[in-house]
């Protein structure tokens, strides 16, 4: 059982962090501790599994799939007694972002944060042109998924659920509609079906553009999956598998939704003042969009986890 890294049961993790990139299966093999005579005795596989499930249950109790909007100061407080590089970067982010919203760290946080933020932005802006566009893009994926070998019955309910959400947000804005979106995205069934659909579309997009994506897959792992199909079966389609750069490229291309990711980590020399450090920003702008298209979705990435950011004046 080489792939149950001890990281997975690290109870000292922040509540928002359900398991980082570092605990993903790709990096886990060398951390098994086997063959290290000084390593303490490993707990049994059953114990590890039970503890993982317990941590997951705990997570579910303390955090919603999609949390409430919080001021940036709440984010800063997490680091106030810790690494000051975070504090400096967050202070700079406050110029562009007013609030943020946490997502549950269950491995689905990218997909869930991405779609919630997107739907919410459409609702707030009441952008009917974009609603129509995304509706037809989703409908086009029906044929593409079937061509890609996915059974229609596997995804058609999920597609109906997502299209229903799009239909709801096409209506004039009400507080009720806003609340309903949040309630739905906190609902086990609705929320997870939508995440599942996004995973299948991502998988299909990666497989349709195998030649483009395969070199990246080869670069992601010490022992890369032999085919793009295996990569998708192992790292894209299963719920709870962490998203990487590649997943983001694929889904933003597939749905033609530009996304900005703000990377917040401890990197940089502690300057102890001055102009301070900037968080790294990366825009995922699909080829089909005009270069420089303004991102609709802003996400905050901290190693292993994505939350939602709200741009000022957006």
């Amino acid at each position: 059982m080489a792939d149950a890294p001890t990281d997975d049961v690290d109870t000292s993790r922040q509540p928002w962090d359900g398991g980082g990139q570092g605990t993903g299966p790709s990096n886990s093999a060398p951390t098994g501790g086997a063959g290290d005579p000084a390593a303490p005795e490993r707990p049994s596989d059953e114990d590890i599994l039970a503890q993982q499930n317990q941590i997951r249950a705990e997570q579910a109790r303390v955090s919603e799939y999609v949390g409430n909007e919080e001021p940036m100061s709440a984010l800063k407080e997490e680091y106030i007694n810790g690494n000051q590089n975070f504090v400096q970067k967050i202070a700079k982010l406050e110029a562009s972002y007013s609030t943020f919203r946490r997502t549950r760290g269950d491995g689905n946080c990218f997909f869930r944060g991405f779609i919630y933020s997107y739907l919410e932005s459409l609702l707030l802006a009441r952008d009917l042109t974009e609603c129509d566009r995304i509706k037809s893009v989703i409908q086009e994926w029906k044929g593409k998924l079937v061509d890609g070998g996915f059974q229609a019955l596997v995804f058609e309910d999920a597609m109906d659920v997502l299209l229903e959400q799009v239909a709801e947000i096409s209506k004039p804005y009400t507080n009720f509609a806003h609340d309903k979106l949040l309630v739905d995205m906190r609902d086990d069934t609705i929320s997870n079906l939508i995440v599942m659909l996004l995973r299948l579309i991502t998988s299909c997009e990666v497989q349709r553009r195998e030649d483009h994506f395969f070199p990246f897959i080869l670069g992601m792992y010490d022992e890369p999956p032999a085919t793009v199909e295996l990569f998708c079966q192992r790292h894209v389609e299963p719920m709870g598998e962490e998203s990487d750069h590649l997943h983001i490229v694929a889904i933003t291309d597939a749905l033609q939704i530009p996304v900005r990711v703000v990377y917040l980590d401890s990197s940089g020399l502690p300057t102890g003042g001055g102009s301070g450090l900037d968080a790294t920003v990366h825009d995922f702008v699909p080829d089909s969009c005009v270069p420089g298209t303004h991102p609709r979705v802003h996400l905050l990435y901290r190693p292993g986890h994505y939350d939602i950011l709200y741009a000022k004046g957006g």
Partner: protein
Amino acid sequence: MGDTLAANLLRKQLKELTKHPVDGFSAGLVDDSNVFEWQVTIIGPPETLYEGGFFNARLTFPKDYPNSPPTCRFTSEMWHPNVYDDGKVCISILHNPGDDPNGYETAAERWSPVHTVETIMISIISMLSSPNDESPANVDAAKMWRENRDEFKKRVARIVRKSQEML
């Protein structure tokens, strides 16, 4: 709303499988009022030790299917490295990622929501054709498969005969 979507998805599959049966197995509900509990009969795949057998099994789906996998348990007697003493089938696709009690290689395909009764049965049929003795659920069967193939064949021939008598 929770289990109605799961139930709906399972009902669709039942309808589809009734209309267009798939070679190698038959499937239906144990009790028409419960779409989460399936009764399947697997036909021993041709040109394998299990050829000629008719093996019954139960598929039990969780309420959060397709986010979590069903369990599959043979109710007919079974002798196979990847089937526990109590009949429970242990193959990688019936495990969630991360849930790894049997030390599958990381490359093995895990559960994902793309799996249906049909793809699960196809995996189980393929398991019968090619046992994986690297991560055995039944250590005795795995040992016999590896070290005493003749004895293994005899043992399987016996359960094949038994399954025919039960028809």
